[in-house]
């Protein structure tokens, strides 16, 4: 295994996040890396995946010949519907999201900070894709998990003291999982609870701009 391999990192992050799931959780996964979480559901538990375009019970991707043009996820990708799935309109879909009925949402980030602020929807003057459903998801889900690489391609920390990009939501992130660390946002601050195997706490702190509280019982990822 190559710790610097992008696919290795993504698998590590997705796998660790999957361990946070509980039986019968209702979960929304953002596009990209977060989608991979579905591949690592712990044995013996059932998790229900929602997609904000109007389905609960998202199944795996269909084979090309089984694609249905009227059945997609919020990323526009073809999906299947599991037995027991149901369809609903967008207002109901966001009532589920905003009404606190999702146990978890997993999203990518451009930046996140120690106060639980998240920026993932625009870079002024450069990229303005719009927030889509991200602001609703981050504001409404019980647990808001950020899945991302710890540093950007220049090696700079994406976990800042203060986000500098326009926010998606203020103070709503509950957990950050990167290829280096698991950081929980608590009332006391951002707590470094786990580090990836082979790393030292010092290495993680060095690559993190935000102030971290190092947990007494700090552990290695168990994935």
């Amino acid at each position: 295994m190559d710790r610097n391999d992008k696919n290795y990192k993504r698998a590590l992050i997705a796998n660790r996040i999957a361990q946070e799931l509980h039986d019968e959780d209702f979960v929304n996964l953002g596009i990209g890396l977060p989608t991979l979480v579905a591949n690592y559901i712990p044995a013996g538990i059932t998790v229900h995946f929602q997609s904000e375009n109007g389905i609960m019970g998202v199944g795996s991707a269909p084979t090309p010949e089984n694609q249905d043009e009227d059945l997609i996820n919020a990323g526009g990708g073809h999906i299947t519907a599991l037995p027991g799935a149901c369809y609903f309109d967008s207002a109901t879909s966001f009532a589920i999201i905003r009404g606190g009925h999702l146990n978890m949402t997993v999203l990518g980030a451009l930046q996140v900070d120690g106060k639980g602020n998240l920026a993932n929807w625009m870079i002024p003057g450069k990229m303005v894709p719009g927030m889509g459903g991200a602001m609703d998801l981050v504001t409404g889900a019980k647990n808001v998990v950020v899945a991302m690489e710890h540093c950007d391609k220049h090696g700079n920390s994406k976990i800042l003291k203060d986000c500098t990009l326009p926010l998606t939501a203020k103070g709503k992130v509950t957990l950050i999982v990167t290829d280096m660390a698991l950081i929980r946002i608590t009332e006391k601050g951002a707590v470094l609870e786990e580090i990836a195997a082979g790393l030292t706490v010092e290495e993680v702190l060095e690559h993190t701009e935000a102030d971290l509280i190092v947990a007494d019982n700090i552990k290695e990822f168990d994935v």
Partner: protein
Amino acid sequence: MAKVITSKQAAEMIKPNDRLMIGGFLAVGAPELLIDELVKANVKDLHAIVIASDYENRGIGKLVANKQLKSAQVSHLGTNREIQAQMNAGEIKIELVPQGTLMERVRAAGAGLGGILTQTGLGTLAQEGKPVIEADGKLYILEKPIQADFALVRAFKADKLGNLIYNKTARNSNPIMAMAGNITIAEVDEIVEVGELNPEEVVTPGVFVDYLVKREA
């Protein structure tokens, strides 16, 4: 009875400066026939209320590509470079609205509400220029209804009263927009006789639907 008309008749009702809600999510569930007819009619200066700007060659992206939109209220532009180019060039005025807020604002118009309070967008750019109200010790953004002259929606089947059912995730924004258009036009695959839809299964009651356009087989 909802009146059955052609897509051409539908497009002819729509005039420059009209406000259009158009159903669909990344073009799935979009009324493609009505959009094509609008492109043909080449009506300009339209305002669009849509979840996403879709793709340059699918959904409302086709109206963008043909430069028929002067403005839009939309939650996501990421799949359409053309709309981003027009936005950067100042050719189209974009109000980005969080998707859940967009749906509640459309629903508010259909349901006769004067607005709704939401925490989505608090402390972000989405809050700019909007009243912030305290209720029971928490802060909320007051979001106002979004009205439209027309709602153009896509459904699977209609009966002749205009009752609608949808197919899978092609449902998305369509039932909410159908409630909210001053005039609602539904593009459907099939029109069945009154009594042929199961009354428990109807998603959009016909009271919300003014016109039906049948897709060609």
